């Protein structure tokens, strides 16, 4: 049974349709990349899956032991966060607060935060201020926070935007490790089509033409080969 199934989704704002006929499903252990041109509706899709926005039509169903608030979310950073006075530990712990109705963190939450900080190699920064860290380190803090919220599905929104190539590669390998070793299902919205086809097991292409299938099928399909060529030539 799939962890997440979207059928005939219609997405948009206040009656204005951005995207329709969205059909895809995510199984445990999948690594799904959501690609498409700018303005094709990738972020609207993501917000709808997260429940931040209501779909205009169609259905989103959760299954395989996943509830609708069990998607760990790695948002793009906002300007407000860049100068927010908070330590790494405070931020990672805040990922735990949806887990129970309790108001204060107990031993279990603190242990979970420590464990996830270790996993993301940020234990040495625990008492440091978030705004003093580099972009890659900040992303790892937010990833550790998302892992505190859930171990089942992670939804990553452009996780490598603004990072230099070396840090980007490190970020991708951390994500791959989570997917392979901890069986965390990954859903990633990405501009980086090259990385998408080399890491992902499934691709969802949104826009005028829709595509959903395995990465191999995507390479073979018209839309995939065209998009890959286009992006590849832009890069050169």
């Amino acid at each position: 049974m799939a962890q997440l199934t979207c059928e005939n989704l219609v997405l948009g704002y206040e009656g204005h349709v951005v995207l329709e006929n969205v059909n895809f499903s995510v199984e445990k252990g999948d690594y799904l990349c959501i690609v498409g041109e700018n303005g094709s509706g990738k972020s609207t899709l993501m917000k709808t899956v997260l429940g931040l926005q209501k779909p205009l039509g169609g259905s989103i169903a959760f299954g395989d032991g996943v509830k609708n608030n069990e998607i760990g979310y790695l948002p793009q950073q906002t300007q407000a966060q860049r100068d927010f006075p908070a330590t790494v530990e405070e931020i990672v712990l805040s990922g735990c607060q949806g887990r129970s109705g309790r108001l204060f963190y107990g031993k279990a939450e603190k242990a979970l935060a420590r464990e996830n900080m270790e996993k993301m190699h940020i234990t040495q920064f625990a008492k440091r201020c978030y705004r003093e860290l580099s972009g890659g380190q900040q992303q790892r803090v937010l990833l550790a926070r998302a892992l505190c919220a859930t171990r089942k599905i992670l939804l990553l929104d452009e996780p490598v935007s603004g990072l230099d190539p070396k840090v980007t590669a490190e970020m991708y390998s951390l994500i791959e490790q989570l997917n392979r070793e901890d069986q965390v299902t990954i859903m990633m919205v990405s501009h980086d089509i090259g990385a998408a086809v080399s890491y992902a097991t499934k691709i969802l292409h949104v826009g005028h033409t829709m595509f959903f299938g395995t990465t191999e099928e995507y390479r073979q399909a018209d839309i995939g080969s065209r998009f890959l060529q286009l992006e590849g030539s832009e890069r050169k």
Partner: protein
Amino acid sequence: MSDFFENILMFLGESYVQKALIVGALISLSSSLLGVILVLKHFSFIGDGLSRVTFAATAVASIMNLTASNNMLVVLPITMLCAILLLRPGQSSKMRGDAAIALISVSAMAVGYLVLSKFPTSNNLSKDVCTTLFGSGSILMLSSLQVWLSVGLSVAVVVIFVLFYNKIFAVTFDESFARTSGTRVAAYNLLIASVIAIIIVLAMNLVGSLLISALIIFPAMSAMRLFKSFRSVSICSAVFSVVCSLLGILISCGASTPVGSTIVAVDIVVFLAFCAVSAVRRKA
């Protein structure tokens, strides 16, 4: 100079000054805690807009023949309503936050002055307006109802802040993440809005409508110069605020200056000192 200290000592013996010090400390404490949230949420101007609402509401209360001691019963609900309107979840894109604040703020000023000039409660209109805007000494004339109301409400604000500290942090740092992980963000925003209204109404007694923003913004801004964690920023701004307000009240007694502006002047001086320390630290 010795007159100044003698004055202060003499005033310290007076029960109305003691009341003012207690109420002043509590109001500063609660406003500084809320200030941290507002500054970090980039909502500093909400405090300013709401304080103008308290001006209009006070004007309305005064023509309803409510005395200064029980006008809170009218002012508080009106301010709360406006706070909830401004901070309500799912604000439509047609009314952007900053424009809505500006609208409410100027409307309140205009209506307030209109009401006061059409239905004057005394012969001295400009003095009435000045008292409401700058709270000229009203903290030194508190009735016991006002004292108890202020103490009760400030304690409630501090308790709410401590109890919901972790939730407030999560909602302030990253609203969308908090919502996806199952926090009832809308409910907490409503709570924050109501608490803001309470604090602004309380602070009106201390510094008057126009200077309320200072009580909210200065402590948080100063603390953020020196401290790096949310917890230390909260604690430092609470201490900063209480110390400055107490100093301000004492100085105003000794030098017979208006209480509100003296408190804000102390805030400014200490803020500049914090800035200097942080600049020196960065160079070192």
